[in-house]
């Protein structure tokens, strides 16, 4: 296996995640796209960990997974609040701060 096949797969997944973040209106779907991007980065870290024969990459993946779990918890709480106030999970409606 060459290193680049993992890195390019991760790049493709990351860009699909970016497309989702830019295009989706539903807040839960935006969070899912962010999870796609985090997973792409994790794949990179594991590939480099295997390439360099260093366990640091795997330990950082464990940290990223923990922080992703915390992020989803807080993010879904915020989207729930948004839903209570606007009666819809549509992020485009939250524009009170727009100048």
């Amino acid at each position: 296996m060459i290193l680049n096949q993992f890195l390019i797969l991760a790049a493709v997944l990351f860009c699909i995640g970016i497309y989702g973040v830019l295009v989706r209106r539903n807040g839960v779907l935006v969070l899912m796209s962010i999870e796609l991007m985090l997973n792409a980065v994790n794949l990179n870290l594991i590939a480099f960990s295997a390439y360099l024969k260093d366990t640091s990459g795997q330990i950082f993946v464990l940290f990223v997974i923990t922080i992703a779990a915390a992020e989803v918890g807080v993010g879904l709480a915020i989207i729930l609040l948004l839903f209570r106030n606007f009666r819809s999970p549509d992020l485009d409606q939250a524009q009170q701060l727009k100048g």
Partner: protein
Amino acid sequence: MVAQNVAFWIIAIAMVLSAIGVVRTSNVVHAALYLVIVLAGAAAQYILLAAEFVAWVQVLIYIGAVVILFLFGIMLTRSPMGDLDLDNSQRMPAFVASLALVGTLTALLVDAFGNSKVVIDSPTKTSVLSSDIFRLYIVPFEAVSILLLAALVGAIVLARRD
């Protein structure tokens, strides 16, 4: 080596198609189920790269906990007017931007790493990983546990009704 490459390409194609499903489907629950395939594929790639502990953590935390959290989120935020159009009007610019980014990244990676090979002799032992966490990375480990506690308390404070 050949078997590993075949497995890689099967899993990679499944992951990319499911990821496209996550950002293209018009049903929110289907997006969560496509996400499960992507996350399981990532766990399989970790096993191919001999990181078995991380692969099982991925299965337990992502597929076990995060996706369930997403399904609860979908359940609690069902729009009373029925499903609206899930995409906004910037599909074309977003597509161009992500395509440009994937092109740039691919060119950069091919230029930087070329045909560098990943040679895997033996799986990473979980004992090595745990002794590294508790010797070299003990301070970040404790910081992350405080952060997780703070985030969970914050989520409860945000979501409770008063």
